[in-house]
C-alpha cells in the first residue's frame, strides 16, 4: 500500500492515470445518475459505441487536410462528443418520426456508427498514416496512454459537464421525474432533454480513453445503480454515485498499471460491478440481505403471535391459570391456520415467553401473558 502511494507521488505516468481515472469516474458517476433515473442506461452504450465514428472521422479528415495523423487528443474528443450527440439526435428523430421503437432505433444507430467507425479504423490501420497506433486503444481503453494533456482536457470537459449539472440542477430534476409538470412551470422539454443528453455524452467521452467505447456504458450504469441502493435522495445519490465512480476508476486504473497485461477498461468495469453487487447485497434499506433478515423476523413474529394468542385465549377461558398448561396438540387445534406449532413453541421458549412445565405441557410465563395482551391490544386497534 505504501509502495503504491509512493509510486503515485513519484511516477509521472501513474499519477496521470490516477488523476484521469478519478475524474472520469467522478463525472460519469454523477451524470450517470440522470441516465439511470430516466431509464436510459443503454443510451450510454449507444453513445459510447457511436463516438468511434467521430474519432476516426476526425483522424482521417485531419490526415487529408494536413497529411499527418492526429496526435492531438482534444480534437479527437471533440469528434467523439459531436458524433455521440448526433447519434442520439438521430435516435430520437427515428423514434418520433416513424413506427420504429426506440430500442430498434438505438440498435440501428449503434450498428451504423460503430460499424462505420470500425470500418474507418481498419482502413487507417491498413494504411501507413503516422500515429495510428493510439486509435485502437479507444476500443478497450488504455490507461497507460493518458498523458498530462489528456488529464487537462478531461478536467476541463468534466468541469463543464458538472457545472452545467449544478446550474440546471432544478431543471434536470424536474425533467427527470415529471417532465409534464416541468413544462407547466416553464422547463422546456426539448431543450432540457438535449442538454441532459449532451452532458451525459461529455461524461462518456471523458472515459473513452481509459475505459474504451465498448465498456464505457458500465461506468454510466454501475455507479448510479449502486448508489440508488443507499438513498432515496437525488442529491445524496448523485454524490455517492460520483464517489463510487471515482473509487472504481482509481482502483481499476492503478491495478491495471501495476499488473502487466491487465487491460484498464475491463478492470475498471469489474471493480464498479463489484461495488454494485456489494451495494445490492448489503444496503441497509433495500439490500437483499436486510430484506432476508426482515422476512425472517416477520415470519418469526407471526409464528410467535399465532401461538401466543391461542394460548392466551385458552388460559383466559379456563380457570386453571395457575395449575397446569396445555399440550401442543390442543394449542394447534385452536387455530384453522396451518403452522408449525413445535417451532413456535421452541422460539417462544427461547425468548422466555412459555414454560414447558411437564413433557409437552406448555404454560405462558408472565412475560408471555404481557406480550399476548399487547398483541390483543394491537388487534383491537
Amino acid at each position, binding site marked *: 500500500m505504501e509502495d503504491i502511494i509512493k509510486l503515485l507521488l513519484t511516477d509521472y505516468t501513474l499519477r496521470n492515470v490516477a488523476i484521469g481515472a478519478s475524474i472520469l469516474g467522478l463525472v460519469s458517476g454523477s451524470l450517470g445518475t440522470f441516465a439511470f433515473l430516466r431509464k436510459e442506461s443503454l443510451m450510454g452504450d449507444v453513445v459510447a459505441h457511436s463516438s468511434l465514428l467521430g474519432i476516426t472521422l476526425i483522424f482521417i479528415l485531419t490526415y487529408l487536410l494536413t497529411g499527418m495523423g492526429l496526435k492531438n487528443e482534444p480534437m479527437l474528443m471533440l469528434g467523439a462528443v459531436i458524433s455521440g450527440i448526433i447519434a442520439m439526435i438521430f435516435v430520437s428523430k427515428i423514434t418520433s418520426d416513424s413506427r420504429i421503437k426506440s430500442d430498434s432505433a438505438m*440498435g440501428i444507430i449503434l450498428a451504423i456508427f460503430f460499424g462505420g467507425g*470500425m470500418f474507418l479504423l481498419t482502413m487507417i490501420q491498413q494504411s501507413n498514416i503516422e500515429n495510428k497506433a493510439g486509435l485502437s486503444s479507444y476500443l478497450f481503453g488504455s490507461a497507460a496512454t493518458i498523458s498530462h494533456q489528456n488529464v487537462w482536457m478531461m478536467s476541463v470537459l468534466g468541469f463543464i459537464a458538472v457545472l452545467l449539472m449544478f446550474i440546471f440542477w432544478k431543471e434536470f430534476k424536474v425533467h427527470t421525474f415529471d417532465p409534464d409538470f416541468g413544462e407547466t412551470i416553464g422547463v422546456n422539454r426539448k431543450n432540457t432533454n438535449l442538454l441532459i443528453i449532451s452532458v451525459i455524452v461529455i461524461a462518456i467521452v471523458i472515459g473513452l480513453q481509459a475505459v474504451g467505447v465498448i465498456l464505457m456504458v458500465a461506468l454510466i450504469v454501475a455507479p448510479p445503480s449502486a448508489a440508488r441502493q443507499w438513498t432515496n435522495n437525488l442529491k445524496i445519490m448523485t454524490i455517492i454515485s460520483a464517489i463510487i465512480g471515482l473509487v472504481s476508476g482509481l482502483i481499476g486504473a492503478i491495478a491495471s498499471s501495476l499488473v502487466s497485461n491487465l*487491460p484498464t477498461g475491463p478492470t475498471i468495469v*469489474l471493480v464498479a460491478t463489484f461495488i454494485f453487487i456489494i451495494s445490492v447485497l448489503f444496503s441497509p434499506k433495500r439490500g437483499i440481505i436486510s430484506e432476508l433478515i426482515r422476512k425472517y423476523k416477520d415470519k418469526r413474529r407471526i409464528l410467535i403471535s399465532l401461538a401466543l394468542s391461542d394460548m392466551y385465549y385458552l388460559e383466559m377461558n379456563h380457570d386453571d391459570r395457575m395449575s397446569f398448561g396445555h399440550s401442543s396438540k390442543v394449542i394447534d387445534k385452536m387455530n384453522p391456520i396451518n403452522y408449525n406449532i413445535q417451532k413456535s413453541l421452541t422460539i417462544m421458549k427461547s425468548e422466555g415467553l412459555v414454560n414447558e412445565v411437564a413433557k409437552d405441557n406448555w404454560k405462558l410465563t408472565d412475560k408471555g401473558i404481557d406480550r399476548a395482551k399487547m398483541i390483543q391490544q394491537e388487534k383491537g386497534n
Partner: protein
Amino acid sequence: MVEFNIILISSFTAVSCAIAGVFLILRRMSLMSDAISHAVLPGIIVAFLLVEDRTSPLLIFGAALSGLILVYLTELIHKTKLVKEDAAVGLVFPAMFSFGVILITQYLSSVHFHEHSVLVGDINLSAINLIDIFGFSLPKAIPILSVVLLLNIIFISIFFKELKLTTFDAGLAAAFGFSPVLLHYLFMSLISITAVASFDTAGSILVIALMIAPAASAYLLTNNLTLMFLISGIIGIVSSVLGFYFSFWLNSTPSGGIAVITGLIFLLTYLFSPKYGLIIKSLKQKRQREEFYIKVLIMHILNHQNTEIAEIENQKSGIYHHLKWSGERAEKVIDYCLKNNYIFENHGILSVSESGKQFLNNRD
C-alpha cells in the same frame, strides 16, 4: 473464389440474423443482440481454454450458455426490483465482456484470439479455411452456418404461433397456457447461438447490424409478418453483397462495410417507404394541412354568405384578416379554390359554389 466465399459466408450469416431479428425488434429487445454478442465472449473463451480447439462445436455451446447466463442474471437483478431492466442489462453484459477480455489477455495473449477480431471478426480468414463437402470446396464455416440457419427456420416455424401471440398479446398467451418465460429463454438461446456462429466469422458489430437493421427496414415496408421475414432476409443478402464490394473498394473490413450498408438501406426505407416513409408521411401531412385550409375558407364564406356582414367578411382582398392568415397563404388558398370552382367571385365578394359545399360534406 475467395470473394465468392466471403459473400457466401456473409449471406448465410445475414439470413440467419435477419430471421432471428424480426421477433427481436417486434418484442422490443433489439439491444439484447448487442448485449448477447458481447456476453458470449467469456463462454467462448472458457470453452476454448478447455478444448484448445478453435473450431470445436463446444465453443458454440459455451457461447450459448453464456448468453443464457446473461439472460438469467439480467432477470435475476431485474426481479429484485432494485434496478430497472435497462440498467440490469447494462450492468451484466459489460461485466461479462470484461471478464472475457481479461481472460484473453491473461491466458491467450499468444494465441490467435485478438480483441480486434472479436469485434470485426475474421471473415477473410474464414473464407480461405476450406473443407471438402460432396466434392465442392467450401469454407469450413458454411456447415456450421447452415445448421444455424436451419435451426432458426425450424424454431421460428415451430413456435411461430406462440412467438406471435406472446409478442403481440402476452396476456392472452398466458391465458391460453403458453409459458412466456420458457419461450423467452428458448428464443434467447436461439439468438445466442445465431450470434456466436456469426460472431466467429463476422464479428459482433455485424451481428447487431444484421439482426436489427434489415428487420427494422422490413418493418417499415410491410405489416405482414411472413412477408417481413422474407424482406428482412433479402435485405440481409443484398447488404452482404454490396457491403463486401464497398469494403473491398476501400480496403477495409467487410463486417464494417456490411454494417454501414444495412444502415444505408434502413435510411432509404426510412425516407422512401411507400407506407411509413418520412417523405410519404410529410406529403400526407401537407395534403391534410391544405385540405384543412380549404375547408376553413369555405366554412368561413359559407357562414357569412347571405348575411348583412357578408360584404365585410367575405371580401376577397380582406378575408385573410378575418381568418388571421398571412396574405400570401390566403391568396394561394383562394386561387386554388377559384380554380377548382369551390368558390366564385362577384364584385370582389366571395361565395361558395355547389361543388364547394360538396367538398365540405364529402371529405369529413
